[in-house]
């Protein structure tokens, strides 16, 4: 943001039309009519500041918050489905997600502030494409997928293939809509964790988010596999595949956990940043938080299988 625009508060944001479609088909039709000049609006917690900062200049807003049926979290045929209008507050308070996808609950409850969590949606959080987004990182280790609709049809995109660059995803939000996010609930031998480091505990962008899913056989003291996601440590949300490889079928032991944590720090590419600290510091906290996350995941399995 340049100094002038941060000092001046334009009250008017200069979109010409505001639509409130009653179903998904109508929303997509309006987007198509505006040929890239209309944007979908759900929570608005990213889009409205972008318009204010002149990073986006849509001619029309298509408010999808009146569309019925998109605000539900449900378990259906062994799949957890989160509708496009589900807010971070809903995710944070969902007993189903607390039991079957705790890392997502933890990520959502650490995002922004109560006000932002009441407005913002997790579908919006992934479409915004920020590499450290609080709900994206846990969704990556949950192996979530998004259902993307446009006038042309529907496609399913795994979150691992969703992100192209900082702020850029495979979803064109002037033509397409993520209608739901879905993933399998974690099994009894799996646990999940999200950890966050920021300068303050509220209203602060993350210095680092780490999410982990641990799948292990606690009786035989062996990992089945571990999934690790981190952000922001690269232009897009990051899965630490090499670190994951070290723990695949490994014995549960301090050495392997520490080696995986160090590998995660090596395979990422954090840069020195005024907001987030030096590269050396960031690599150190990546190793620390990854180790802490794996241990906490194991702790959770231990408590469950006591």
């Amino acid at each position, binding site marked *: 943001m340049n100094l002038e625009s941060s000092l001046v508060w334009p009250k008017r944001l*200069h979109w010409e039309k505001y639509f409130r479609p009653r179903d998904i088909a109508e929303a997509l039709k309006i987007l198509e009519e505006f040929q890239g000049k209309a944007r979908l609006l759900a929570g608005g917690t990213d889009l409205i500041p972008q318009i204010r900062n002149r990073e986006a200049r849509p001619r029309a807003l298509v*408010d999808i918050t009146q569309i019925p049926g998109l605000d539900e979290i449900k378990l259906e045929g062994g799949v957890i489905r989160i509708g496009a209008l589900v807010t971070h507050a809903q995710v944070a308070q969902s007993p189903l997600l607390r039991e079957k996808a705790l890392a997502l609950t933890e990520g959502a409850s650490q995002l922004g502030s*109560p006000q932002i969590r*009441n*407005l913002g949606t997790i579908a919006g959080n992934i479409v915004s494409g920020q590499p450290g987004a609080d709900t994206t990182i846990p969704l990556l280790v949950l192996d979530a997928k998004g259902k993307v609709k446009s006038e042309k049809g529907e496609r399913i995109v795994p979150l691992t293939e969703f992100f192209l660059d900082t702020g850029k995803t495979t979803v064109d939000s002037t033509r397409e809509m993520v209608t739901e996010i879905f993933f399998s609930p974690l099994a009894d031998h799996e646990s999940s964790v999200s950890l966050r480091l920021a300068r303050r505990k*509220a209203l602060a962008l993350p210095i680092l988010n780490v999410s982990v899913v641990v799948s292990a056989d606690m009786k035989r003291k062996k990992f089945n596999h571990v999934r690790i996601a981190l952000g922001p440590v690269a232009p897009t949300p990051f899965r630490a595949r090499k670190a994951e490889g070290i723990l695949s079928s490994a014995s549960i032991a301090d050495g392997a956990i520490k080696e995986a944590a160090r590998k995660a720090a090596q395979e990422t590419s954090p840069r020195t940043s005024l907001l987030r600290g030096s590269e050396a510091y960031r690599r150190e906290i990546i190793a620390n938080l990854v180790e802490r996350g794996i241990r906490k995941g194991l702790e959770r399995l231990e408590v469950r299988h006591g």
Partner: protein
Amino acid sequence: MAKEKIQFEVNGKQVFLEVDPDELLIDVLRDHLGLKGTKAGCRGGECGACSIILNGKVVTSCLIPVMKADGGKITTVEGLEKDGELHPLQKAFVEKGAIQCGFCTPGMLLSAKNLLDQNPRPTIQEIKVAISGVLCRCTGYQKIIHAIHSVSKTIPSKEA
């Protein structure tokens, strides 16, 4: 730009308005309805000064196109007092010295009200989380937390 007709309830009163479609709720509350208790701070959803309660949830009115509030129910800080009598939270803020410059006070009060409406006997930690969306630059957080806690203790619990 064509005007749009909308209506919503503010502090118990129905209002009917003609607005431009690109106006934000914060500006309609302040400039059209004269409810200047809702403060404009960062206008980016980061300071919480513009917090209001919309349909039972505390939200930042600077991030809400006014069209989105059509048909909704809004409480601003002006809606807290009843019949010339301050709300218990307002009294507690005055008594406990939880106000310095006052700019964050409306957002703090509405965050606290929204918390107590849902959870009449919160822990100190729950109070801290509830007000975490509003920045106080006089850094009077301790007194604000104590003021809210003193009110929560006076709400009789269900089992009592």
